[in-house]
């Protein structure tokens, strides 16, 4: 990963972050290059979600820096991060349950620059997920788990992001649906989006992404190409049960 001579799309440098009186991340560094798909894997409570929240500035960063395309996000408030081309699909999807699918998608394109291209983006999201077009007038709270994930990803794509942050897209979904979620992620990567995905489902996610970082108790323990991590004894023993 030392190939990046300062041209990584997202650069997380020595970041520490946490919640009131509880530190969750201790000097985490990672990079995502344009066009790459990267996963952060690790057990429950490792700080994976905290990392994505720190990147989106939903929580304060107490140390280190995060930069998107060379521009520091240090003094950027949360609602302006999306303007840097970073869109996040939050943990548990977090759709607006009493808004329709179409209204949820509209909210994803709230930025003035995205509003001008609303129809075009909507047609694009519908072409990716035809199911969303069929369900456009339905309340999001009444969708099935898999459909909700489509809607949540579609909502994030409405802003026309460069970098997509996916927080545990497979969490809480039936095993049959999990498979289709990873197919979806694969397609998003193939569409040319740069993707940073956080997952507990390590075996599945490593089949989809180019590279991964292993996060444990708030620290990066290991990193490398997916195939290499899949073959690593430590990961096989601790996480894949082999």
């Amino acid at each position, binding site marked *: 990963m030392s190939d990046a001579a300062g041209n990584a799309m997202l650069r997380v440098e020595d970041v520490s972050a946490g919640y009131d009186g509880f530190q969750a991340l201790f000097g985490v560094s990672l990079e995502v290059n344009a066009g790459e798909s990267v996963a952060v894997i690790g057990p429950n409570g490792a700080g994976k979600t905290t990392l994505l929240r720190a990147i989106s500035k939903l929580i304060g960063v107490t140390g280190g820096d995060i930069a998107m395309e060379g521009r520091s996000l240090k003094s950027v408030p949360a*609602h*302006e991060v999306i303007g840097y081309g970073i869109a996040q699909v939050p943990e548990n999807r977090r759709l*607006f349950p009493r808004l329709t699918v179409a*209204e949820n998608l509209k*909210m994803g394109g*709230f930025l003035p620059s995205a509003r001008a291209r609303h129809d075009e983006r909507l047609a694009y999201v519908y072409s990716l997920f035809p199911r969303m077009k069929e369900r456009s007038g339905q309340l999001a709270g009444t969708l099935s788990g898999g459909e909700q994930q489509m809607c949540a990803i579609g*909502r994030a794509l409405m802003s026309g992001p460069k970098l997509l942050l996916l927080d545990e897209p497979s969490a809480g979904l039936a095993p049959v649906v999990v498979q289709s979620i990873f197919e979806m992620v694969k397609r998003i990567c193939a569409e040319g989006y740069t993707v940073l995905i956080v997952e507990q489902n390590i075996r599945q996610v490593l089949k989809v992404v180019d590279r991964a970082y292993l996060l444990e108790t708030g620290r990066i323990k290991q990193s490398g190409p997916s195939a290499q991590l899949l073959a690593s004894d430590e990961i096989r023993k601790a996480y894949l049960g082999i």
Partner: protein
Amino acid sequence: MSEVFDIFLLESVLNGLLLGGLLALLSLGLNLIFGVIDVVWICYAELIMVGMYAVYYFHVVFGWPLLLAMLMGILIVAMAGAALHYFVIRPVLAAEPINQLLVTGGVLFFLQAAATLAFGIEFKNLGVTFPPIVVGDISFSMPRLIAFVTALAGMLGMYLFLTRTYIGTAIRAISQDRTIMPLMGVNPNRIFLVTSALGGGLAGLGACLLVLQYDIHPAIGLSFGPITFLICVLGGLGNMVGGFIAAFIFAQFISVGGFFFAIEWGYVIAFLFFIGMMFWRPQGLFTK
């Protein structure tokens, strides 16, 4: 029952309908604020009082045309709503609900006292009179009909705003999930400020309609503040559709109850109904 009796009953039902429209408008603003910001503006009716004085001063004292004075009144109360949020609500947004309630209660008495100081305690009115509208044997008061039609139009406008615009949709979205709004590029503080201005604007519109029917005095808020709040509770606090229906139910109790007994009894019956409902459905009639 005699025919005359029937006609008077019909007249009270229709008057109750007209009153219901006005009460629905008054409760809409309070419901909007509670649904979105999760704070009850106990001083809501005092904002209406401010609006009534504004219309009075611009029209009667400064001599502006009535409609222009009313627009000014709406604008002033809208700004007062935004100011209330910025200076009073925002600092206590994370505080206990009881503290939020008390602080807006403080604003209630502040506004009452300030109005007494500034405008005195004597009753003021616009001095505008309208002839009653007579249809067959039934007569309506013109200001009530104006209030009804305008209130419905105001509510329709609010509905269209909340469903058709980006800001309106964001207002509904933020009431469902506050913490992820920044991920959409939405600044929650800005949405709260816009919502407060809208809530104030609705209070201002209510003021314009009330000032056509009632005299203005510093304690006027007490005559419809409690009833507005109770309607919201009856419909389920924050539930705008519930508040709308509850307003019409309440208005019928007042109007038809007043017809069978005496005007004052209408209110007694309406409030007894409310108390009974609180035993039966404390969460509100229309909350699932």
